[in-house]
């Protein structure tokens, strides 16, 4: 009776498959008879079960055409293919069947970052001392002088006649000296340190000619500057100290008819002299400008002040 309690339908299946009714043990027979009505039913069930098992074993498999597999593999490949060029690149850079550190995308990104570090940070580190020297070699004052020199040398400053006339009227009041010659003159070159405060004596007055002789190269030689018709030594010193010169272009003319023989003032002359063509040029080259000292800077500042006031 113990066996009856533990047996189940799974066990009756085993009995049916492995034992005929005659082969069953007493306990097994007792259990079998709880599942079937009688011995005959047990035999019929056994026959059916064995025949089914036999049939299943002998049954030929249903034919499976190869086309099914081909179609499925094509479907699989179609799913496998990435969409578009971006997808193909992404699939190449980040394949799914590799570990993280074996992905080419990650490796390339690491290499790129490394190169970026070497180029930007590494090179800057190497060149850092040179940069510091370059910065320290140029003081702010010198940089300012550079700018001023550049402005004066590159861009000619033209002084309008009206403004100059107005200034000359001031000078006229000062030029009341009877010592000035009463002759017409040519102004070849005039060095003016501070036009605003220029003494009348600083202006060279040449003998009367119809046209003002002009140097072709617009440069003033030192000996020429040393031979003004009327000029004081003090004034000349100022001129020589200057780095700029005032020249008159060829088209500058003085109308002789308007030059009064009694004219003694520069203002009278300048009224008819077109000073639009008076050009202030830098006498020194850029290379020499590097050698400027603070003293020359102050002189230049005077000229610049003059020009600003004139403007």
């Amino acid at each position: 009776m113990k066996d009856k309690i533990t047996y189940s339908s799974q066990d009756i299946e085993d009995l049916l498959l492995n034992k005929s009714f005659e082969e069953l043990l007493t306990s097994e027979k007792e259990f079998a008879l709880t599942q079937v009505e009688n011995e005959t039913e047990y035999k019929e069930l056994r026959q059916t079960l064995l025949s089914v098992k036999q049939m299943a074993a002998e049954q030929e498999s249903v034919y499976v055409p190869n086309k099914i597999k081909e179609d499925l593999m094509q479907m699989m490949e179609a799913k496998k293919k990435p969409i578009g060029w971006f997808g193909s690149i992404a699939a190449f850079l980040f394949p799914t069947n590799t570990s993280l550190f074996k992905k080419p995308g990650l490796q390339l990104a690491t290499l790129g970052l490394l190169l970026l570090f070497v180029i930007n940070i590494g090179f800057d580190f190497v060149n850092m001392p040179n940069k510091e020297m370059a910065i320290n070699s140029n003081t702010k004052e010198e940089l300012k002088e550079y700018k001023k020199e550049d402005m004066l040398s590159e861009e000619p400053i033209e002084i309008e006649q009206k403004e100059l006339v107005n200034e000359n009227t001031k000078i006229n009041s000062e030029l009341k000296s009877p010592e000035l010659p009463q002759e017409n003159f040519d102004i070849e070159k005039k060095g003016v340190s501070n036009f605003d405060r220029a003494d009348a004596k600083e202006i060279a007055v040449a003998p009367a000619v119809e046209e003002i002789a002009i140097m072709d190269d617009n440069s003033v030689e030192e000996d020429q500057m040393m031979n003004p018709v009327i000029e004081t030594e003090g004034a000349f010193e100022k001129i020589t100290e200057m780095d700029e010169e005032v020249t008159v272009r060829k088209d500058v003319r003085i109308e002789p008819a308007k030059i009064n023989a009694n004219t003694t003032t520069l203002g009278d002359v300048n009224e008819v002299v077109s000073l639009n063509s008076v050009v202030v040029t830098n006498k020194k080259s850029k290379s020499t400008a590097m050698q400027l000292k603070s003293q020359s800077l102050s002189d230049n500042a005077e000229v610049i002040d003059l020009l600003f006031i004139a403007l």
Partner: protein
Amino acid sequence: MAKYSSHTDNELMQLIVERDSQAFSELYDRYNRMLVNYFYKMLWQDEEKAQDFMQDLFAKIIEKPKSFDVKRNFKTWMFSVANNMCKNEYRKQAVRKNTSYDLDENYQIKDTAMNAMDSLQDTQFSEKLNQELSKLDEKQKSTFVMRYFQDMSIKEIAETLECSEGTIKSRLFYTLKKLTVSLKEFAPQLVKMLLVLIGINSL
């Protein structure tokens, strides 16, 4: 292909999720015959239908490989999908024929009557068995086919059909009883056949 032969079904499914076509090929080779035979038994021994259903099942695996729960056994998961496909097909046929099982049953009864005199033939027994299987309840049929035609264990069937092992055992036993009654006319032939095939002298 050889490198995947040692992989388990679940490992192959993980590779299929990652779009490994060779893994899919290996899995197909393992289960295509098993599935087509299952569908053949379940779907009225219609060979073309069985092939179509088998192809559809593998297509579903390709389309949605992530639907497979890696915690489950692949074989039982696959047969549960196949069983659900069969259920849907039964419903379709029922709607189409309104009483599909009755029509089939009538046809099979007629067929049985016509071949009563030739019932001793082995092939006829096989046909009769298939006919009787078609008459079975869907649950009984699937359980019986899985157990005796697919050689699945009670545990696997229980997992596939999501019921207890005791339920499967009792279902199998009562199905066997039902078939025995239906195939009673083949008993003398079965006795002879079994004596020859399995060498049993007496039942």
